[in-house]
């Protein structure tokens, strides 16, 4: 009996040694792996590892994460639970089960998900198209060592940045110009646009310019997708609208309706701009005929962001519409006719006359653009 008891005691000692070895090796294995080097243990995708594609109305995201097992034991019963959140809503939830990651090996876990444009709200679409956002991947990873010696649960958050489908769209209003062309007066606005590099083909953009007096003009441009592009948008402007834009600073609203491909609806992009008129608040006041001389007080502010070079042509007519006198004043002769942005112009224009005038026609020519604005006033 004593011998059996001693055998039992030795067996107990061996058992204790095995348990201690199991405990210390699994703890060491685990501490040296997931605990001390969690980034090596699970390599979450970097920005450059994420591939975005767009097909029809669906945006596909392909990436992967790698689980490396540098410990002594295999990882078994691995369960990965992913939840992708963007724009405050869960876009995808997926569970992946991996039987095992053998000791000393790595396993790549593909992460593929898709977002259908038709499943999104208008707000989400706007965010996806125009804004930068983050796709937050919250992952729960559970695994165990053989015989459940050790079980562990790892929660991590990974962020995949989303730069938007239209990453930059800039209408350079400060460089906008009104020009006199063969086809009439145009408003030319330089623009630059940068679209996501995974997009291809062309996009159609319809633009509408609106001001205080309603719609001023419309235009349509086609831009190549997937790269940076810059050009000028030209709006044909009617006579009344030109007058408005030359003499009345106002808030302009440009609505761009963008269609990325035939599977997408139009996205609306609205910008506003405080349009600065070169002859803002143009006033011709106190026009009078006195002692053989016609006089008038002229004032305005150059509200445009560009230097104004002005020529003034004054034509005086009698009551039979006969030209009785004319006068030209050019910025080349009179430096006061060159106005810096924001500078106010005030002058009294005077013309010596032999006959009694009825009315005057005054042409304001903005030399840079060649645009002429005509004012007809009675002389009293």
């Amino acid at each position, binding site marked *: *009996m*004593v*011998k059996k*008891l*001693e055998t*039992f*005691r030795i067996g*107990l000692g061996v*058992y*204790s040694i095995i*348990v201690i070895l*199991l*405990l210390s090796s*699994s703890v060491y294995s*685990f501490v040296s792996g*997931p*605990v001390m080097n*969690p980034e090596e243990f*699970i390599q979450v995708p970097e920005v450059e590892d994420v591939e975005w594609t767009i097909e029809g109305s669906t945006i596909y995201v392909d990436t992967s994460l790698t689980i490396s097992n540098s410990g002594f034991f295999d990882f078994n019963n691995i369960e990965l639970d992913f939840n992708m959140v963007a724009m405050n809503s869960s876009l995808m939830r997926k569970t992946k089960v991996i039987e095992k990651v053998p000791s000393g090996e790595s396993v790549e876990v593909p992460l593929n998900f898709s977002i259908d444009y038709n499943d999104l709200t208008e707000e989400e679409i706007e965010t996806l198209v125009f804004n930068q956002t983050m796709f937050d991947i919250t992952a729960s990873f559970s695994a165990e060592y053989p*015989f*459940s*010696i*050790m*079980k*562990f*649960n*790892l*929660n*991590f*958050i*990974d962020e995949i940045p989303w730069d938007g489908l239209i990453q930059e769209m800039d209408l350079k209003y400060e460089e906008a110009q009104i020009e006199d062309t063969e086809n009439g007066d145009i408003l030319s606005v330089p623009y630059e646009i940068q679209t996501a590099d995974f997009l291809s083909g062309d996009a159609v953009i319809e633009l509408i310019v609106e001001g205080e007096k309603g719609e001023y003009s419309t235009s349509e441009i086609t831009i190549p997708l997937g790269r940076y592009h810059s050009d000028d948008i030209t709006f044909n402007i009617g006579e009344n609208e030109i007058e408005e834009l030359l003499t009345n600073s106002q808030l302009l609203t440009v609505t761009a309706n963008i269609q990325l491909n035939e599977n997408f609806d139009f996205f609306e992009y609205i910008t506003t701009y405080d349009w600065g008129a070169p002859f803002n608040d143009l006033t011709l006041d106190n026009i009078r005929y006195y002692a053989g001389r016609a006089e008038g007080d002229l004032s305005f502010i150059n509200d445009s962001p560009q230097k104004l070079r002005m020529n003034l042509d004054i034509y005086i007519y009698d009551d039979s519409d006969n030209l009785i006198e004319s006068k030209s004043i050019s910025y080349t002769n009179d430096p006061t006719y060159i106005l810096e942005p924001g500078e106010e112009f005030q002058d009294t224009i005077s013309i010596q006359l032999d006959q009694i005038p009825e009315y005057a026609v005054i042409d304001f020519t903005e030399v840079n653009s060649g645009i002429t604005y005509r004012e007809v006033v009675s002389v009293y």
Partner: protein
Amino acid sequence: MFISVERVEGNYVKAVLFFFVYFLFLVIFVYFGIYYLLNNYPKMDFIFENTVFYAVIIGTPVAILAGLTAYFSKGDIYRLIFGLSRVGLTILYVFMIYKSLNIGWQEEDIFLQITIPTIIILLIIGFSLKGIYYFLEYKIYSKKYERHNDKIDENEFEKSSYY
């Protein structure tokens, strides 16, 4: 194998040795182990919640009981009592230490939580077997002592009858 069945007087040296060995493993190592870890990896401080407290409060009595168990000879009822008490208290020690550990790791975006259920079960099984061992040891050795004592008594009786 020669196995002595002779009951010996209490062994102080063995008792003190066992006390220190147990105290070293259950209290000192735990204390300095945690001290070392927290000094080198301050982020780990959330792992240990009252661990040192339980190590001292339960580990010290376990070490004392180990010393007392070692002091008494095999087959002695006190060895059985202290041995079983030590096993029971060691199970409590393991359980409380395990409960006090929030074994995990927290990085900026990573949270790791670990459980070691099988190891705990294996340890409890081991301690239970040790308890069974003490019980069997007492049963076997106490009978041997009885037989040994009976034999001595018989011899003395025979001797006294002869004279």
